[in-house]
């Protein structure tokens, strides 16, 4: 039994034990938190061991009827196991004090947390269809319990839960259909056999399998247009669960896509990957555009998840496209970029969601228009969110900066390599990545600047306090990981390359392809920046005559001290951008002007309402929902509540069946 196997066994054992403890004895919340964190540690160990080459395989035929449980951990799965484990460590420690509320102390919620983590750890380790689907469903159900944990807060939580439940199960059905079709053509549901047979599938069948699984996996990853559940469920879930879902669970959609599309089906046609690329580009731009307009802190982070998964899909799609045109090295580079982004996104999204939870914990609000002025009262949370925001906005020194650089390198080299399809796809992809980078900067400046700096915009914020130690520690761990990933990406590159299938990216993010050498050193860049700051500060100390700062009043145009109501809010900050993208987001404005009765020229009150609805959701989901509602209303006529009639239905149905049998037999 090697280290990877031991780690996996430990993770499963600790999680199950924790869940059992939570069922049987009335344990404290901190026990569940510690158990979850330990599960995460074991998963990180297992994943790291698998990445270092210590893969394992185990088959337990008796555990699950029909297919049996079969687990294998290869480098690709190991990467996702390690990422999930890392997020679980931070989320587990965080939940020790965060989850100490009446709603989150409920037994079901405490049981669900470790089971959710272990389900996510098992999905990338599954080695047959049966195991994959069972773990996938366990992950969906436990996360659903966690999403609706705080249902007493208001009807919107239950609504989010319903959206999530329906969409995740429709996605599950889609994956099920795709994989069942696949298995029907191979005759064996183990991945090893499918990998063999996948090469010989007819293009039509392979295409159907790919599209069906793509729909399911994309809905899990929150890809447009299947993203509708994400900005609902992520904000309403408790914050450590939001972190787990947003930083770990959505990744598994990417994992599924890579596993089935690249590994099992063995690449496939170019149009598959053009489709993935297009979905990624649309998601990236649309997600960040919605986030830029949003004034709800956690909703903004959820929409940014859609954006980041879109960027990952751009990388995966480009990798598939290059592979289908035969350029293996470039494909591996694009896939490496995508996986580096997965790792980086997991790190910074964990920090951001945990910090947002800390704000919610302290102020009871996640509305950016009501926040502000948190820096003096919550310095650690502010610093953590600042680190996360920098990492998320593709600025140096941040993790997204490194992965987007790698992605752009792959796209630049792909243009001459890939033929006419690439000639159209690559510039559009670069434009999408570039537009996303620009909008992400504006979004995170808004989230950090309006949410944490300046003066408090409401009473609740003015009385805020810093969160308890365990929450700060969890944020601190995640923030440190963010910084390390940003400064020393070379530390994870060999591991990610092992997962992506090997490419010459080495050292300080130096990449060598057949003709070109590209290099970027985030560490050198950061050192240069720090040195420059030091030089400028020293020169200023020497040059400035009067060093003591005098405190002065802010410029208020001579009108006396300014109130918090005069500050710019998140909504007003985003207004110019909203105007620019008016045609895309189509905001709804509602201005009511009421006049004095005496004169129509005197205005009594002006009421202004603005809403930025999700346009894709409105166009795509509303018609379906209204058809279903109409169908349900039509069906209601059949069920007036009369027992006689129901008995009659049964009677006629049985008669009908008997008649049918009599006629046909």
């Amino acid at each position, binding site marked *: 039994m090697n280290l990877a196997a031991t780690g996996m066994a430990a993770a499963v054992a600790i999680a199950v034990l924790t869940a059992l403890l939570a069922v049987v004895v009335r344990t404290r919340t901190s026990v569940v938190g510690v158990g979850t964190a330990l599960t995460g540690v074991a998963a990180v160990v297992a994943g790291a061991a698998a990445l270092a080459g210590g893969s394992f395989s185990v088959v337990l035929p008796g555990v699950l009827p029909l297919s049996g449980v079969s687990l294998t951990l290869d480098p690709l799965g190991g990467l996702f196991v390690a990422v999930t484990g890392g997020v679980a460590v931070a989320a587990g420690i965080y939940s020790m004090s965060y989850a100490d509320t009446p709603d989150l102390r409920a037994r079901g919620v405490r049981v669900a947390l470790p089971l959710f983590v272990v389900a996510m750890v098992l999905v990338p380790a599954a080695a047959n269809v049966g195991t994959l689907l069972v773990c996938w469903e366990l992950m969906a159900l436990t996360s659903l319990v966690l999403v609706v944990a705080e249902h007493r807060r208001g009807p919107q939580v239950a609504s989010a839960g319903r959206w999530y439940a329906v969409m995740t199960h429709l996605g599950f059905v889609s994956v099920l259909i795709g994989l069942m079709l696949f298995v029907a053509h191979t005759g064996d549901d183990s991945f090893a056999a499918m990998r063999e047979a996948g090469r010989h599938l007819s293009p039509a069948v392979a295409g159907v399998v790919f599209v069906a699984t793509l729909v399911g996996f994309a809905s899990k990853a929150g890809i447009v247009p299947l993203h509708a559940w994400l900005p609902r469920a992520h904000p309403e879930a408790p914050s450590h669960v939001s972190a787990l879902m947003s930083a770990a669970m959505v990744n598994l959609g990417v994992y599924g896509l890579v596993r089935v599309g690249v590994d099992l089906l063995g690449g496939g046609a170019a149009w598959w990957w053009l489709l993935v690329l297009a979905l990624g580009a649309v998601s990236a731009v649309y997600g960040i555009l919605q986030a830029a307009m949003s004034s709800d802190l956690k909703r903004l982070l959820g929409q940014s998840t859609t954006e980041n998964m879109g960027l990952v899909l751009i990388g995966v799609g480009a990798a598939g496209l290059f592979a289908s045109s035969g350029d293996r090295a470039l494909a591996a580079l694009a896939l490496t970029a995508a996986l580096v982004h997965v790792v980086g996104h997991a790190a910074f999204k964990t920090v951001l969601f945990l910090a947002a939870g800390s704000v919610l914990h302290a102020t009871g609000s996640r509305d950016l228009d009501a926040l502000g002025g948190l*820096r*003096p009262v919550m310095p650690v949370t502010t610093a953590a969110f600042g680190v996360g925001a920098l990492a998320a*906005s593709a*600025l*140096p020194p941040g993790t997204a900066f490194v992965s*987007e650089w790698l992605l*752009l*390198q792959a796209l*630049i080299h792909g*243009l001459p390599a890939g033929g006419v399809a690439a*000639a159209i796809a*690559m*510039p559009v992809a*670069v*434009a999408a*990545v*570039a*537009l996303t*980078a*620009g909008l992400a*900067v*504006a979004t995170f*400046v*808004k989230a950090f*600047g309006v949410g944490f*700096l*300046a*003066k408090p915009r409401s009473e609740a914020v003015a009385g805020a306090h810093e969160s308890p130690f365990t929450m700060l520690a969890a944020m601190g761990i995640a923030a440190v990981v963010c910084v390390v990933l940003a400064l020393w990406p070379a530390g994870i590159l060999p591991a990610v390359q092992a997962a992506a299938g090997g490419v010459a990216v080495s050292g300080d993010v*130096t990449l060598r392809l057949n*003709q*070109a*050498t590209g290099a*970027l*050193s985030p560490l050198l*860049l950061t050192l*240069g*920046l720090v040195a420059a*700051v030091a*030089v*400028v500060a020293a020169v*200023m100390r020497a040059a*400035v*005559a009067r*060093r003591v700062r*005098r*405190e*002065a*009043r*802010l*410029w208020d145009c001579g009108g006396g001290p*300014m109130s*918090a109501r*005069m*500050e*710019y809010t998140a909504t007003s*900050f985003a207004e*110019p*951008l909203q*105007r*620019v993208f008016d045609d895309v987001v189509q905001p709804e404005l509602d201005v009511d002007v009421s006049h004095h009765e005496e004169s129509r020229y005197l205005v009594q009150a002006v009421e202004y309402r603005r809403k930025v609805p999700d346009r894709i959701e409105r166009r795509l989901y509303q018609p379906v929902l209204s058809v279903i509602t109409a169908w349900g209303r039509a069906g209601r006529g059949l069920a007036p509540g009369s027992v006689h009639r129901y008995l009659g239905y049964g009677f006629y149905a049985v008669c009908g069946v008997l008649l049918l049998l009599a006629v046909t037999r």
Partner: protein
Amino acid sequence: MSALGVIGGVVQPVLIVAGSPLLVGLMRQVRARLEGRAGAGVGQPWRDLRKLLRKERIAPRGTSEVFRFAPLVLVATTLVVAVVVPFVATESALDPVADLFAVVALLALGAVALALAGLDTGTAFGGMGASREMTILALVEPTLLVAIFALSVRVGSTNLGAIVSSTLHDPARVISPVSLLAAVALIVVIVAETGRIPVDNPSTHLELTMVHEAMVLEHAGPDLALVELASAMRLSVFLGLLANLFVPWGIATEATPLALLIGVLALVVKVGVLGGLLAAGEVFVAKLRLFRVPELLAGSFLLALLAVAASFFLA
């Protein structure tokens, strides 16, 4: 790290810091003469900086260290860019940083620091300036990246030194449609990014139109001196980048005193001419309404995209 790179890394920042206020002075002088005024002279920006440095440091009430560090970060990012970009010599002191994506991101980082400082003051002006600046940045950054992508594709690298060297070796590239489209796109975004007419007016203090000036309204004394110096440096850096991406001739390729002298002179002449042209152009153009600016930037984004498409079909 070659000798040429080290010398370039020392000469370039000194030249940019010393010369950029003179560039601003030159542009103001050109403008004044064209408008029929005498003008304050080329050295006036340096005199203004000296005056500001002698004043008292001010800490506006309620601001945090974000506000205090922003001018330092702004100058530092520009300084790093001045060190790494091939202005005077083709080789860079810190080659792994002389990447187009890194340079664009560094310049954006400086703008972000200033925008956060604007928000940190909690005044309506600060927020307004930050919001407008970020809107413009969100549209400028994509155009910069796509235009740069068009230039990188045929070189196969985003390293600035590699792009400049390849243009030196193959001068015919400069008049290709790719270069011309990318050049027009870059000129538009550089005008927007450095806050010149028709996007922003550096000499206005009118609420309706201010962008950059609204953001830095609370900075005073030495802090303001840093901000002013940094915006002058950013202007020089952008113009120098534009000049060397499309007309790199004169840049030093070897570490001899004569080559370096020619490199310095070539940069001064190129940036001076570009600055003069920009200032002369400003006299004849009115400032755009703020909400017409995105149309201009969208146009330049489209040009950059066309440049990328052209770079494939003409390759």
